[in-house]
């Protein structure tokens, strides 16, 4: 039954820009400040206070537009979006309507079948955030206006997304781009990235169905779940002969269900008009070129470079470039070793395990890239064995000091002196004469046991290849 239908989805994403100050005044946008401490006459909406636009916010919005292949409008203007709500003290939000800062871009995403699909971006506009209302403290609503005026970009797609999975992929890509650009921290849980979804379904070939808007999804997985839920809900209604009501639903992550918002039925009449307090923004070629010069290497390009330059499998490149911080860490390790693949293995393996277990960012990982690079070199030049390498890694976790000091202090240097190893091996052979006899009678498995004994005796420091060589020679001899 589901096969007859296709979903048509468009996403609206709000991304909080990481500027120092608000969009139209010089108050801090710092999260977690005491309530109503980062406010001034402009963001409090006092009569007569005049907004002045933050240049950095404009540049961030343009950078985003360029990163997702948009046209940057030469002229854009701010508009007032009028609505009444206590966390919006002016009675209007300064946003953009007719002439947004960027239009007509696209992002590529991987579909479930593994092919690339283009999701068109209709527009990117700048606007200010509202304050925060607290409803659950006593009989009144409390309002904190610290967030009021925080710069946001809203990124609106065309309805090109056709499944919850695709929406998820799009968001992951978007997060990667904003964090690579360093314009937003991309944290959905903390609300610095927010996503609303417009969802409708139709039978294949039919005209567009009635859409609903789903809000209040505060994680990437919840966006996927909420869209899946809404697609199923709409199909069920249609299959039972019903019709879809155009409405806004709020996702409840605890119940895994979306419920219609209990707001009064009032059609939104925002009465947009150009804000007379603000002059037009003109982005000429010169300014655009200057902003373009600040464009960092984007995830896709970096991924491809990793494959080419470091000869890495696609899988490695994908994981290493999944965050800018991880890719930066990896390249920092390569300042100290040329063993690209080992460096990749350490970063994707042991290091990722530690940061995932401790739920930290690789930026906060205690071992420096320099010491990881040195560790790899110490293994590669046979100073220590791979097994001791793991031990050294554990030691480095305890204290991030020069690995060479640790191996000297802990006496971890690999035994590559064959006369020293011969002594150990002679000792093992004489105390295991039964096993030696078994081996000589053709039971070759015993070889592994004898290697193990040598390793135990040397506390893992024996060079394994050398042990194999000497042991073979002595057993055959």
């Amino acid at each position, binding site marked *: 039954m589901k096969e007859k239908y296709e979903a048509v989805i468009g996403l609206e994403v709000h991304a909080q820009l990481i500027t120092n100050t608000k969009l139209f005044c010089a108050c801090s946008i710092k999260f977690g400040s005491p309530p109503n*401490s980062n406010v001034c*006459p402009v963001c409090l909406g006092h009569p007569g206070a005049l907004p002045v636009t933050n240049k950095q916010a404009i540049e961030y919005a343009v950078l985003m537009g360029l990163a997702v292949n948009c046209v940057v409008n030469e002229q854009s203007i701010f508009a007032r979006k009028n609505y009444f709500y206590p966390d*919006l003290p002016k009675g209007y939000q300064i946003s953009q309507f007719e002439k947004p800062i960027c239009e007509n871009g696209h992002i590529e995403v991987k579909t479930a079948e593994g092919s690339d699909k283009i999701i068109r971006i209709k527009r990117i506009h700048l606007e200010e955030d509202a304050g925060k209302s607290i409803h659950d403290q006593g009989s*009144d609503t409390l309002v904190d206006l610290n967030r009021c005026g925080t710069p946001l970009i809203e990124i609106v797609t065309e309805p090109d997304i056709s499944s919850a999975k695709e929406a998820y992929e799009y968001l992951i890509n978007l997060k990667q781009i904003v964090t690579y650009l360093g314009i937003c921290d991309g944290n959905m849980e903390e609300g610095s990235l927010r996503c609303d979804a417009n969802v409708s379904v139709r039978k294949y070939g039919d005209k567009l169905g009635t859409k609903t808007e789903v809000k209040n999804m505060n994680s990437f997985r919840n966006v996927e779940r909420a869209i899946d839920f809404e697609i199923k809900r709409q199909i069920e209604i249609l299959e039972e002969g019903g019709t879809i009501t155009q409405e806004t639903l709020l996702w409840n992550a605890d119940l895994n269900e979306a419920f219609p918002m209990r707001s009064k039925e009032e059609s939104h009449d925002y009465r947009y008009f150009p804000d007379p307090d603000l*002059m037009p923004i*003109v982005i000429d070629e010169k300014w655009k070129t200057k902003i373009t010069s600040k464009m960092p290497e984007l995830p896709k390009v970096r991924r491809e470079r990793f494959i080419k330059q470091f000869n890495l499998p696609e899988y490695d490149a994908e994981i290493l470039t999944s965050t800018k911080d991880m890719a930066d860490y990896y390249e920092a390790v390569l300042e100290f070793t040329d063993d690209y693949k080992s460096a990749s293995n350490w970063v994707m393996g042991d290091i990722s395990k530690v940061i995932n277990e401790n739920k930290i960012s690789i930026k906060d990982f205690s071992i420096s890239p320099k010491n990881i690079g040195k560790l790899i070199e110490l293994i590669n030049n046979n100073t220590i064995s791979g097994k001791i390498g793991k031990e050294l890694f554990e030691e480095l976790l305890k204290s991030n000091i020069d690995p060479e000091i640790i191996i000297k202090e802990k006496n971890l240097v690999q035994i590559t002196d064959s006369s020293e190893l011969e002594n150990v091996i002679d000792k093992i052979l004489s105390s295991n004469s039964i096993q030696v006899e078994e081996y000589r009678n053709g039971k070759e498995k015993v070889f592994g046991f004898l290697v193990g004994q040598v390793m135990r005796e040397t506390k893992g420091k024996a060079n394994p290849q050398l042990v194999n060589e000497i042991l073979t020679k002595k057993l055959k001899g």
Partner: protein
Amino acid sequence: MSVSKDEIKNIAKLAKLNLNEAEINEFTGDMNKILDYMDKLNELDTDNIRPLSNPLETYNVLREDELKRSIDREDALKNAPGRNDEFFRVPKVIKSDKK
């Protein structure tokens, strides 16, 4: 172009204004006079003229992203009709996630 009394009532509602019957009549008349004048202006051929969003000819009035001291909370809350030590206090509103 003209507006009806109902439209005036709706606009007043959106602007949180309470108008009595006499005022509604008065504003409907005023508003229609303004719109009649707009119709007069519309007789002008503006096909090849760029829309003007601001009568001043300046653009890019911008500031650098530098922090300045905000005002004290006490001052921020001073004129509020309702408050506690830290917050503005308003009649309970239902939860909705507008931005």
